[in-house]
């Protein structure tokens, strides 16, 4: 493959202004230490398709790039010639508010999308981290979730249509702009969470949710995880309808950096080891008031040390911080970010394992868990960033993986990730997954080596 020829051909499509060729410029788009030869930013789906056709003919290995907030996911690319950015694909394709659906291009950021939707009393309730930079295409590729998955579901529940550009440049679509559809296979499910290994997502359609009239959060501090789980279990057993039950826990040496991330939630984190449960309610004003009353009572019965209600700006500020906690755009030296999933009923023992093993290896641990969904984001922090830290983080991962197979590394130093099973235990049906990957991308051009298949 001649980079010079490829670069001329790409420039002819997108213009020189939207093509980076200088290694110094391209370095900003390095993926886990692997720097692309070229970075291209097509201005339309048609241009992106032409870019892929040319890249395919040239045999180039491609990494799709949205906001660049989740490029730490997966293994480092086995090869990388070309980064294809989607940021200029940020148009709304179809939005008739009374349909309560929207079709948008994939390069729009979550924040920009929700600003547009807010004008019409709608929302896409997917609270992925860093909404001002994270693009829709990026969160679709990772299937990233947010705390409110409990009340509104995840992208899997809200995605109703999709358009992709395949490795060859071919543009295909599935689904539609309707909320119920069994016209052909549900290809949305296939592309969602496939980490750009099958095709580049260029636009998507969603079912929207009407914005609630009222909202408030009950924040509760507990001295022990057991008492925090008394509240969590009570919420599971009851008929209240909180839109999230988020468990925050911090153990090990006091993490100043973690506290600054927490902002007004930090008050819930006084002391060496503490557990916060945040319970937001949204809906009719009377229903929200009922949640404030009942959750406060349940928290006190569970032995909470402090219970505080957050409303209006305090509520908004709190969630703006909490949703960013699992972010993977920047990590500290000696830090490892991991996602653990389990049956919701197994979360308490799984988190106990994570904490016990962290303590054994002298690691601080910040946990952000969607407590009724069985999803936890774990930020492990060594107090140094040397070989000893690497060994401690690797030892933690290996010990944890033996006990909890659904464990994915989302971010960490390349030296720490080296040799570790980034995607955790192999999933069932991996042979079919490999056949699908081979059928869509036989030459292995898309995100080569990064995904589980």
């Amino acid at each position: 493959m001649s980079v010079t020829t490829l670069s001329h051909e790409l420039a002819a499509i997108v213009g020189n202004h939207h093509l980076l060729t200088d290694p110094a410029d391209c370095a900003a788009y390095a993926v886990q230490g692997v720097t692309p030869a070229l970075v291209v930013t097509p201005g339309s789906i048609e241009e992106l398709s032409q870019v892929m056709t040319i890249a395919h003919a040239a045999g180039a290995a491609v990494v799709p790039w949205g906001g660049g907030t989740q490029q730490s996911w997966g293994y480092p690319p086995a090869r990388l010639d070309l980064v294809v950015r989607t940021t200029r694909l940020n148009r709304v394709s179809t939005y008739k508010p009374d349909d309560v659906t929207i079709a948008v291009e994939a390069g729009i950021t979550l924040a920009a999308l929700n600003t547009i939707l807010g004008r019409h009393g709608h929302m896409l309730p997917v609270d992925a981290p860093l909404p001002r930079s994270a693009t829709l295409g990026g969160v679709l590729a990772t299937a990233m979730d947010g705390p409110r998955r409990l009340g509104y579901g995840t992208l899997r529940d809200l995605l109703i249509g999709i358009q992709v550009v395949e490795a060859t440049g071919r543009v295909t679509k599935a689904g539609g702009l309707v909320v119920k559809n069994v016209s052909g296979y549900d290809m949305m499910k296939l592309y969602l969470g496939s980490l750009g290994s099958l095709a580049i997502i260029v636009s998507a359609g969603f079912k929207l949710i009407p914005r609630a009239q009222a909202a408030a959060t009950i924040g509760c501090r507990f001295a022990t995880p057991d008492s925090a789980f008394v509240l969590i279990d009570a919420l599971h057993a009851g008929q209240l309808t909180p839109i999230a039950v988020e468990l925050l826990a911090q153990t090990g040496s006091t993490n100043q950096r973690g506290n600054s991330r927490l902002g007004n939630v930090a008050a819930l984190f006084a002391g060496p080891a503490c557990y916060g449960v945040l319970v937001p309610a949204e809906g009719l004003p009377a229903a929200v008031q009922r949640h404030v009353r009942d959750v406060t009572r349940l928290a006190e019965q569970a032995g909470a040390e402090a219970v505080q209600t957050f409303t209006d700006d305090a509520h908004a500020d709190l969630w703006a911080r909490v949703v960013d906690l699992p972010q993977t755009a920047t990590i500290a030296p000696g830090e490892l970010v991991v996602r653990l999933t389990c049956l919701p009923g197994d979360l308490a023992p799984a988190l106990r394992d994570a904490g016990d093993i962290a303590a054994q290896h002298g690691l601080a641990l910040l946990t952000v868990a969607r407590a009724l969904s069985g999803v936890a984001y774990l930020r492990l922090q060594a107090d140094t960033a040397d070989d000893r830290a690497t060994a401690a983080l690797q030892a933690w991962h290996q010990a944890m993986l033996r006990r909890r197979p659904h464990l994915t590394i989302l971010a960490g130093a390349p030296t720490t990730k080296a040799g570790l099973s980034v995607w955790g235990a192999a999933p069932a049906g991996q042979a079919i997954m490999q056949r699908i990957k081979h059928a869509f991308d036989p030459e292995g051009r898309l995100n080569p080596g990064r995904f589980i298949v």
Partner: protein
Amino acid sequence: MDSSQLNAELRRMLGPRGVIDDPDALITYDADGCMMDTHAPQLVVLPTSTEEVVAVIKLAAQAGVPVVPRGTGTGLSGGATPMQGGIVISTARMNRVLEVDTRNNRVQVQPGVINFELSQYLKPYGYHYAPDPSSQKSCTIGGNIANNSGGPHCLKYGTTTNHVLGLEVVLSDSSVIWTGDGTPANGGYDLTGLLTGSEGTLGIVTQAWLRITRLPEAVRVVLALFPDIAGATATVSDVIACGLLPAALEIMDRLAIKAVNDMYKLGLPDTAEAALIIEVDGVEDGLDDLLQEIVGICERHGAINVRPARTPEEQTQVWAARKNAFGAMGRLAPTYHLVDTVVPRTRLPYMMEQVSRIARKYDLPIANVFHAGDGNLHPIILFDRRDPDQNERAHAAVDEVLQISIAQGGVISGEHGIGVEKLNYMPLLFSPDDLAAMQRVQRSFDPVTLLNPGKIFP
């Protein structure tokens, strides 16, 4: 292996009660609820376990005969019709609820469990299985999974795909995999999501983990009657704009009202052109205020009669009328054809105008019962199939409804599937490249096309 060897071998494995080969009995398996295309199977088998399904698949592959899964045959698109003969696998004897796990909001079932019976089973636990197709008293979970079935309450709660956590499937190479158990996904392609709605073309579902949903603390239902359809559809928009997604928004037109009125003695005024059912649920607090607000919206849009249903008994009666509307059609005509199509919600009033124009054009009565919140319309074309002329006009009417729906940004099936009935419409909705991408998935699961051949892809 010839057909008598296959028969003998299946009998040996499944026992005499596990195989049907009597030609008269086989005829009853020549179609599902869609009577447009028929074809009898070579044999029907009734396995009781995953192992027996594996054995059937192995033999079928050796004999080179196709396999078609079937629940209770209530499907409306011919998905369970063995168009190329072969073996029909009936799930009738795989009808056990295996485990209720409320701590993890899940239930493990065999595919032959009846949808309604599952929700009844879960009631004492304080839970229900949310997808509730109108045929829920007779349709199976396996069929629901194959067609990604919906129902009135999927406006708020989502369709079947939002409630399937993991599937045990037998693949065409006779291997068995579990695609999940309710643990949130953490890497790998979403095979559960692909299998749901794949109409039995990717694998035979032998067990499933389903999500179960806590029963709401409080429910309110309103039945509002309007002098025109437009008032009902405008009400739907304003109710959604209240900031609370209702659990259900259903409309019946004059003809459908007449049918259920006759059958259930509901005493609904025959001047009504549309009946709108609105259901909201959640915690008790604030729900009565919302109910008042909804009644006000109905009245502002010219409702002639608004009946709030507060007690479970009143609510059950309102829902009985809606859910039995299809059954009541039998009082109006010897046969009916139910069209399933979905448009963006704001296109519903236009579609209603077109449907009534089509009714006049082909001189056939068409009743309408539809999921107004979802944009999912169900024109019911009433005719007598024994009359060739009526039969032909009914087919032409179906075709015209679907063509107009596609032109309005609609799709050709919301919840009934493509099956055989809608094969020819697939190219109107999808490009050859779109279809090729789907077929890559099909071949990745079933390279020899052993499973339900001749469905979905034209």
